């Protein structure tokens, strides 16, 4: 994995020192809260309902065991013993105090980490496929591009006060495991000449109140033109993106209002005649970065097939994926135990994962956009031992990719923007869906089901638009109401879900979701996924099932 050199180390230390000084000026009143707000946001610090929340970047989802232990230390000493992994490969601490944040940043800097641009109207943490570098279907390892973009965008002078936040994701395989087309800019890397990739550049994806799947800006862009093109794309957005209404300020709205052709023309006009010497070192820098990722320090093992019964069998089927090196496996660790809060991990759990990674996975951990963790390179022969250790820690839930592997935002329990609770809904659904999955599997049937995401407001941090079943918490007439969308997809067939009909109470939601899944089960063709069935069947059959018979809720 990427290791900081002296320059990187000095950079994050300087950024931490800069923030310490800014906090000092805020505390003495030299900076007003209005002035301080964009500065703290650019460093991942939000003022939430109960306390300051610090969001820390896990660039492209890669963590070392040492870094995970730093996060555990922060959880135990500056939070209430836990942290929350997010859908954009960040971790959030929800109970921090402003005066402690500079110390937290110093500890992070020592571990080669930071909170740079994890919020605010700037280029955010660049995300990717959590299986990067180990997936069998990968054509280009996207991590080197991500690190190049992390460096280029960090403390960028010109793009630090954009109309709105700006999210970039990079993938290097046909399968999209990073929701690439729901980003402001999405890159698909392909093998190119001399070891440098070529890219399809997608623009204008996003969720929020106006969900959009990204459009192709330009296909097959050579490496040399990647940064000059992104530079111009950002500049045109900075100058022309709307600033009169924050809900219309994302690049997706600019592209929709200008039209893709006109936006493209502006970008190319900006690029014309530019001196590209600032990017002259991009190729050698890419090669330098790539060398950190290039070799998997793995001796090829014997290609063995591991299978098992009961919980181990389910875990193997759901949580263990093929590795590109024979004899190894990619192990996903579910943070979605029955009734748990999606994405939450205690300091103790973080340490335990750090130890496991050190012992069995080259000291490396990944964070997925579905709020789970990954041990990327485990010897097949060690799978049983890893499973046993996870069982002991209560982290062996075999539900990766099943419906109980729910994405949820923190919702009204923490977030100042939320209009409804997300966490209790996720917990109730987790109970219901997990017991269904266990029952179905025991009956010898296929336990797979729709993806299910929950957002506590229209900002859609819980990615409800991009789920097969999306749940959006709203506040209607001063009470919570949950709206259901169906047919969304975050994968290579990216699609925005359609609203099913009027909303439900929190108590009704588990029955409604179960009814949708049963309806799918009844109409499903052999081997069909929920998304495929929905595309074939349409909304009406589900609508009838959900709305024709009232849902019974125990008083």
């Amino acid at each position, binding site marked *: 994995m990427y290791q900081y050199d002296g320059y990187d180390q*000095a*950079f994050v230390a300087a950024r931490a020192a800069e923030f310490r000084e800014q906090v000092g*000026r805020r505390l003495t009143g030299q900076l007003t809260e209005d002035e301080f707000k964009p500065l703290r946001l650019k460093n991942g610090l939000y003022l939430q309902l109960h306390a300051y929340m610090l969001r820390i970047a896990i660039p492209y989802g890669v963590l070392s065991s040492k870094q995970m232990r730093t996060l555990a230390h922060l959880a135990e000493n500056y939070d209430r013993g836990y942290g929350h992994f997010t859908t954009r490969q960040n971790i959030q601490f929800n109970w921090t105090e402003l005066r402690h944040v500079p110390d937290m940043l110093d500890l992070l800097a020592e571990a080669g980490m930071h909170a740079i641009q994890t919020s605010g109207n700037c280029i955010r943490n660049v995300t990717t496929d959590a299986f990067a570098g180990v997936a069998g279907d990968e054509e280009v390892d996207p991590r080197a591009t991500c690190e190049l973009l992390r460096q*280029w965008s960090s403390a960028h*002078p*010109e793009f630090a*006060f954009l109309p709105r936040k700006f999210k970039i994701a990079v993938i290097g395989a046909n399968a999209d495991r990073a929701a690439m087309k729901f980003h402001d800019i999405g890159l698909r890397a392909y093998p190119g000449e001399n070891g440098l990739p070529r890219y399809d550049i997608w623009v204008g994806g996003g969720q929020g109140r106006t969900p959009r799947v990204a459009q192709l800006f330009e296909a097959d862009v050579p490496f040399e033109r990647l940064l000059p093109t992104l530079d111009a794309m950002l500049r045109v957005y*900075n100058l022309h993106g709307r600033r009169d209404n924050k809900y219309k300020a994302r690049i997706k709205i600019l592209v929709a209002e200008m039209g893709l052709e006109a936006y493209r023309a502006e970008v190319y006009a900006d690029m014309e005649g530019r001196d590209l*010497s600032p990017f002259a*070192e991009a190729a050698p820098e890419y090669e330098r970065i790539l060398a950190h990722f290039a070799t998997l320090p793995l001796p090829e093992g014997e290609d063995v097939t591991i299978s098992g019964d009961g919980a181990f069998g389910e875990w193997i089927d759901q949580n263990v994926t093929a590795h590109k090196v024979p004899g190894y496996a990619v192990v996903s660790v579910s943070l979605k135990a029955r009734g748990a809060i999606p994405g939450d991990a205690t300091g103790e759990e973080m340490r335990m994962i750090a130890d496991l990674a050190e012992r069995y996975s080259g000291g490396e951990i990944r964070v997925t956009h579905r709020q789970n963790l990954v041990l990327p390179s485990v010897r097949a022969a060690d799978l049983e031992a890893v499973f046993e250790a996870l069982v002991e820690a209560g982290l062996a839930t075999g539900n990766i990719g099943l419906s109980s592997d729910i994405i949820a935002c923190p919702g009204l329990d923490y977030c100042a923007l939320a209009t409804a609770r997300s966490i209790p809904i996720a917990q109730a659904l987790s109970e219901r869906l997990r017991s269904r999955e266990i029952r179905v599997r025991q009956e010898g049937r296929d336990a797979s089901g729709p993806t299910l995401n929950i957002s506590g407001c229209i900002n859609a941090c819980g990615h409800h638009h991009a789920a097969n079943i999306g749940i959006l918490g709203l506040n209607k007439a001063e009470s919570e109401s949950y709206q259901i969308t169906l047919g969304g997809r975050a994968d290579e067939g990216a699609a925005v879900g359609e609203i099913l009909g009027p909303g439900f109470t929190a108590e009704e939601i588990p029955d409604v979701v179960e009814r949708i899944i049963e309806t799918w089960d009844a109409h499903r063709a052999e081997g069909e996924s929920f998304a495929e069935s929905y595309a074939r069947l349409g909304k009406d059959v589900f609508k009838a099932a959900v709305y024709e018979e009232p849902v019974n809720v125990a008083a």
Partner: protein
Amino acid sequence: MWLLDDHGNFDRHEAIDTGREIPGETPPTALPNDEVITVRFGGYADGRGFSTGNRLRKMGFSGRLIAAGPLAPDQARHAFQSGFDAVLVEDDAAERQGERAWREAIKHSVGELYVSGIGSHGPERGIWRARHDH
């Protein structure tokens, strides 16, 4: 009025030649022949002026470029790195934000960047250049 220049000098002046003033949100489409241009930022969180500065330098403007508007000391480096020579600060802002904060703005900012842009007057050399330009 106070002026912070890219050498870190921060001084009060009775009169400052601010040349032609243009709004940060509208970069000129043709090369201006003025000796001094002042780009007025629309708001503290409105970063269009940085891109306007960049565009002016890209089209070959070699005169003096001044950033004006409700900026904070923390944005000084952004201005210099986007091609500005100086930041104009109103008396009340200098007083409230502190002379020292402005005088030490560059010292307290991230001093190095990975990529140094064309026309940057910032303190950075560029980490990529340092790594590869032997």
